[in-house]
């Protein structure tokens, strides 16, 4: 195309947008292109299941950056366009219309898509998903008072949606195959608090229950459950997880392993191609190099920033402690670290009633902490726990459990 090859980011989500700005912050002055399949400027997904559903009116997406910020950042944003190929030999990205963009370094930040319900005919039978702003708008319209909403999957997105639909006056049933809610990602005690809160709000929570079949009946959908019961719903939403969007990477011959496979520098099997955010898996240095893939807002942001710096040669390992939050009703759940890595649990019962649950490894190292409380009540302690985890701290269980010893004091004792 005659221009000098620049930095190219594919995927205009949380991660791609952050990476584009971080490239400028890190001093990149050359051409910078952000390619996004969605027609709108980058926006936040977390509000889609929360304020977008409960707010008084259907609203525009919560933009991460508008056209002016992109312009001021010197970012050439190509919206509504899918990248279909990476021509690695020629260092070019091929777009849907055939246009080619030369890259010096490329970032794949293609995110994830909602996992389709593995039941024949589910798509035809009007099962809905929640991943994009347009999904949210369509769904929002159906959350009328009294509407019967069936949520398949008791994970974070399904539960947030169940809470929002309940607040809108819908009659909600949540069907979860596992014996408890949020089995991937939280401790049983926190899941129990969440289940109780949903039941108190009137949600019919059915764990240990799967959906065997779906059938359209008089404009509604009949769910045939594995328990033999049936459930008639006006709207069915599946929240059974997300699959990494790896089509582009796979086609280009890049290694894929539960997401685009990258190393600790977020480099793919091609040293000029990086991947970050929900689409990638990487070996986490704090967890013995265990390969993980996260679907977390902050991880997407942080990895976008780190990938950008590494694209410019920073050689920075990505070892940020995983962190996630979820809002349901007046409750906010915070999780730092990897809950399933811990072998011992220590509970700190604060005087205000909030419980912080720590998880330690066999060597006594702090690996995870989680808590649930009203709004940001637990935020600070979880943040401090995150800093302790990052420093590979081995706090004594008795001290950890003692609410009179501040976590900040524990942090001060840690060598940097």
């Amino acid at each position: 195309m005659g221009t000098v090859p620049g930095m190219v980011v594919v995927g205009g989500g949380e991660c791609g947008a952050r990476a584009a700005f971080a490239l400028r912050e890190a001093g990149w002055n050359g051409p910078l292109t952000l390619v996004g399949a969605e027609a709108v400027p980058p926006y936040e997904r977390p509000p889609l299941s929360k304020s977008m559903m409960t707010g008084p009116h259907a609203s525009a997406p919560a933009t991460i950056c508008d056209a002016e910020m992109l312009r001021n950042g010197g970012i050439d944003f190509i919206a509504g366009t899918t990248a279909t190929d990476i021509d690695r030999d020629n260092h070019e990205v091929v777009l849907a219309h055939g246009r080619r963009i030369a890259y010096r370094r490329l970032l794949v930040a293609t995110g994830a898509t909602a996992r389709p319900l593995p039941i024949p005919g589910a798509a035809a039978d009007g099962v809905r998903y929640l991943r994009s702003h347009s999904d949210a708008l369509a769904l929002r319209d159906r959350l009328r008072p009294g509407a019967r909403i069936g949520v398949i999957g008791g994970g974070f997105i399904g539960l947030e949606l169940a809470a929002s639909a309940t607040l809108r006056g819908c009659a909600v049933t949540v069907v979860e195959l596992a014996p408890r809610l949020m089995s991937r990602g939280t401790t049983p005690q926190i899941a129990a608090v969440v289940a109780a809160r949903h039941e108190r709000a009137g949600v019919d929570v059915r764990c240990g229950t799967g959906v065997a079949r779906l059938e359209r009946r008089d404009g509604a959908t009949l769910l045939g459950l594995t328990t033999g019961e049936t459930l008639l719903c006006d709207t069915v939403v599946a929240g059974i997880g997300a699959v990494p969007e790896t089509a582009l990477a796979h086609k280009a011959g890049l290694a894929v392993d539960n997401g685009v496979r990258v190393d600790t520098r977020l480099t793919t099997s091609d040293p000029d191609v990086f991947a970050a955010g929900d689409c990638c898996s990487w070996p986490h240095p704090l967890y013995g190099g265990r390969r993980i893939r996260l679907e977390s807002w902050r991880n997407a942001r942080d990895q976008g920033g780190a990938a950008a710096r590494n694209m410019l040669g920073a050689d920075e390992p990505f070892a940020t402690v995983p962190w996630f939050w979820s809002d349901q009703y007046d409750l906010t759940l915070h999780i730092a670290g990897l809950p399933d890595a811990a072998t011992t649990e220590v509970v700190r019962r604060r005087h205000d009633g909030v419980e912080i649950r720590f998880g330690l490894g066999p060597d006594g190292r702090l690996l995870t902490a989680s808590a649930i409380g009203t709004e940001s009540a637990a935020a600070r302690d979880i943040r401090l726990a995150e800093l302790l985890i990052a420093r590979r701290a081995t706090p004594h269980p008795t001290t950890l459990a003692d609410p009179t010893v501040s976590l900040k004091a524990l942090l001060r004792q840690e060598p940097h």
Partner: protein
Amino acid sequence: MSEWIAACAVDDIDPEDVIPFRHDGVDYAVYRSPQGEFFATAGHCTHERMPLCDGLVMDNTIECPKHNGRFDYTTGKAAGAPVLVDLRTFPVKIEDGTVHIGIG
């Protein structure tokens, strides 16, 4: 010019910490630096209005509890994405062991 309002006792805030203060329906955050100096800012983050009193104070910065946006609470300066708008600050004076903040 300022109207001085008594916010709290000096001992109500630990060093390197923050507490909330509400006056006339307006929320403030009152800080004590590790060096023992007092400061006051608007009570909510300029990003999505989370209460800063639940955030973490480290040296001269307050970190927002929601998305970890950081501000220098001594100047109100926003440290960068996700927080792009500076935090409003208010003058503080100590009299007889009481922290007063200047509003208006």
